[in-house]
């Protein structure tokens, strides 16, 4: 891909990145000085706790709730938990400890002196085991990619399955892979983002999607390993590290070798009304896990355009991409792991809508030349007119290939009508194949006219993004979110779901996972 087709001013691009850093830095500082129930649960999951009580509440939730009641979370959960583990004679079994704690026979304390040193050592050893599993999975993925091969074309073709039943999802996912999908995303059940625990086991009941559970992850990854072997290309698996349990789901993804995770720095705040502080703290930890696990994140900028106008709000997408990039790099993610999002959501009745789409997509491409970029299909202007929808999807695919997008989520002409039928998916893939086959190399010839419409539009959007970033830096990011800067939603830092699960670090806070993940940085 020849670069600088937009003739962007490197000084402006550098200024935009610098502003994103200035806007993001205070949020990172806040994330580094707070913890959440879900971060602590993720750490204990790395240390090996599993299972759930008779009501389906995971033991890790019971344990962390108990610790919180006894001593608070300001010192982290591992110190009191591993101190109790050493004292209670359960032979190092965290799950057993949780059961005893739930029965009321264990009380938690913050250890001091040599007890604290011992608890730290014990917990670090246990957590290191979990991280070792994540490391092994990463090596295994590399090995399988070498063995089976990468997809033949870019963009990778990304398809969604969503039946609610993991045992229905599996044959559908395998069929989708056979039909040409390179990436399978299993959509989560509606409402899982607001559950403050991760359900356990294989699940067969979900609304408009399937629950993200460790066992469901394992089953689907194993099925796609079979498909990879059969098809001679490594089929990637995607899920959602979002909502109240983001750090835990990221951890489970690492433990089960998922390959991509949806993981946006602000999506939960804006679209699920999750407390901003909770989100940023959970975000940082989940990104550190993704970095370690070699998982590609997909960010959610497409969502802004479904609520705000895709032309007026184009620069908010750029701003969010720059912020997501900053937060990702800070957490240790590399450029090849940044599936920064954007979408084809301009009203097709608007004159020159296609040229505007091209300008926006190319801007993202040129700003982030080494990121894979996640290209999302039209949804807002899919009206139920399936014939027009199929045409729109074709133009979406054309922008995708013309601008070198890395991951293309296949648009369905029945968007907003039904969850995709078998035939909808087949028609959609036929559309993608036609466009990639007929125009896959067109980007080699496509250079926007110097000073023409596309270049001017891209420069305009970047300029507006810089202005907005300046305002955000002045106002602080948290206030900007409170004022409704992104996606029109107003989300103040003292409101939203999950705030009660946030704790400020006390002196002596300890988190062995963070220590391991940040070692050598």
């Amino acid at each position, binding site marked *: 891909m020849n670069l600088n087709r937009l003739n962007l001013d490197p000084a402006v691009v550098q200024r935009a990145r610098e502003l994103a850093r200035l806007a993001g830095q205070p949020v990172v500082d806040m994330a580094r000085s707070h913890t959440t129930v879900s971060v602590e649960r993720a750490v204990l999951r790395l240390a090996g706790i599993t299972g759930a009580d008779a009501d389906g509440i995971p033991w890790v939730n019971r344990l962390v709730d108990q610790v919180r009641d006894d001593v608070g979370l300001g010192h982290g959960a591992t110190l009191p938990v591993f101190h109790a583990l050493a004292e209670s004679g359960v032979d190092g079994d965290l799950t057993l400890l949780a059961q005893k704690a739930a029965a009321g026979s264990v009380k938690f304390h913050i250890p001091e002196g040599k007890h604290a040193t011992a608890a730290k050592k014990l917990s670090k050893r246990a957590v290191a085991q979990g991280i070792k599993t994540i490391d092994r999975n990463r090596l295994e993925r590399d090995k399988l990619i070498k063995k089976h091969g990468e997809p033949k074309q870019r963009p990778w073709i990304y398809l969604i399955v969503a039946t609610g039943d993991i045992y229905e999802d599996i044959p559908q996912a395998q069929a989708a892979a056979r039909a040409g999908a390179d990436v399978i995303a299993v959509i989560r059940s509606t409402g899982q983002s607001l559950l403050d625990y991760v359900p356990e086991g294989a699940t067969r009941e979900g*609304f408009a999607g399937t629950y993200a559970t460790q066992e469901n992850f394992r089953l689907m990854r194993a099925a796609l390993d079979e498909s990879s072997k059969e098809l001679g290309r490594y089929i990637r698996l995607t899920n959602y590290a979002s909502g109240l349990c983001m750090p835990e789901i990221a951890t489970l993804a690492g433990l089960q070798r998922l390959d991509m995770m949806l993981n946006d720095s602000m999506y939960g705040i804006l679209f699920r009304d999750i407390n901003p502080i909770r989100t940023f703290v959970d975000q940082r930890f989940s990104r550190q896990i993704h970095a370690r696990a070699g998982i590609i994140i997909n960010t959610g900028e497409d969502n802004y355009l479904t609520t705000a106008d895709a032309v007026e709000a184009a620069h908010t997408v750029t701003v969010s991409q720059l912020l997501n990039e900053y937060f990702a790099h800070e957490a240790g993610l590399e450029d090849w792991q940044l599936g920064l999002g954007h979408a084809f959501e301009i009203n097709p009745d608007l004159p020159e809508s296609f040229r505007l789409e091209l300008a926006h997509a190319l801007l993202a491409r040129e700003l982030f030349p080494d990121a894979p970029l996640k290209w999302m299909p039209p949804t807002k202007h899919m009206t139920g007119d399936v014939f027009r929808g199929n045409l729109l999807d074709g133009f979406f695919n054309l922008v995708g290939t013309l601008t070198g997008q890395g991951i293309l989520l296949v648009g369905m002409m029945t968007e907003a009508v039904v969850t995709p039928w078998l035939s909808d998916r087949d028609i959609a893939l036929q559309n993608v194949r036609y466009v990639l086959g007929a125009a896959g190399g067109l980007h080699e010839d496509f250079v926007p006219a110097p000073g023409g419409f596309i270049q001017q539009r891209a420069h305009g959007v970047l300029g507006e993004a810089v202005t907005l970033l300046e305002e955000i830096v002045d106002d602080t990011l948290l206030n900007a979110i409170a004022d409704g800067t992104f996606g029109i939603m107003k989300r103040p830092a003292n409101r939203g779901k999950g705030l009660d699960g946030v704790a400020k670090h006390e002196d002596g806070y300890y988190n062995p996972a963070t220590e391991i993940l940040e070692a050598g940085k």
Partner: protein
Amino acid sequence: MTKTVVRPYGDTTGDGMTQVSFTLPIPHDKKAEGAALQLAAKMGLDPAMLVHAKQMGDGFTFFVIYGSVRHLVELDKVQVVERDFPLLGSKEINTIVKQKLRRKLSVVGACIGTDAHTVGIDAILNIKGIAGEKGLEYYREFKVVNMGAQVTVPELVAAAKQEKADAVLVSQVVTQRDAHLYNTREMTAAFREAMPAGKRPLLIVGGPRFDELMAGELGVDRIFGRGTTPREVASYLVHSLVTQRSK
């Protein structure tokens, strides 16, 4: 004379031409094509033309069929909910509220249950609106609270009380296992329990899959279906809450 009986129109009056597509769970062969034509005949397509057949994966075939449908449409037997209120402009609406209600008209909106799709409620409430029409937030004389997604019914009732809502708007997009009907019934039951008849806000649901004839059964005052615009909702609110009541 107005027509009372019509047939689908391809390119000639009365030709009955119709196009359908479907998938059968069998591989593509001669027999599969015969099976598709048999289904078309049972659907009333006679004669039917199989214009496209394509196998998908191992055991499925997709068909497109054109044919003349033998059924007749009897227009005098069609039942729909006709708009029974005048469609007004935003200026008129503001004027009526200002002069006759003499306070702001309070509207509370939400997506209830696990439904996270705010696109419907946002289209109606957000100032941005839809299809070039501004949402209810744009109406100077309306006070709008949009609670967003995944609001629980008790939260909605509490907000309606606090805001002294004249109308409650609920949007439901997800329809798996009839979640939209279940959620709506739960919502109307909660309002009936929480407030006496005269004090209850107007209860309105909207979503692409509701049957507009089910209002009574679901206990709501009105159902708005696909393609409803903010102006229609605003006109209805003014008609029900102001114009009719001041008569």
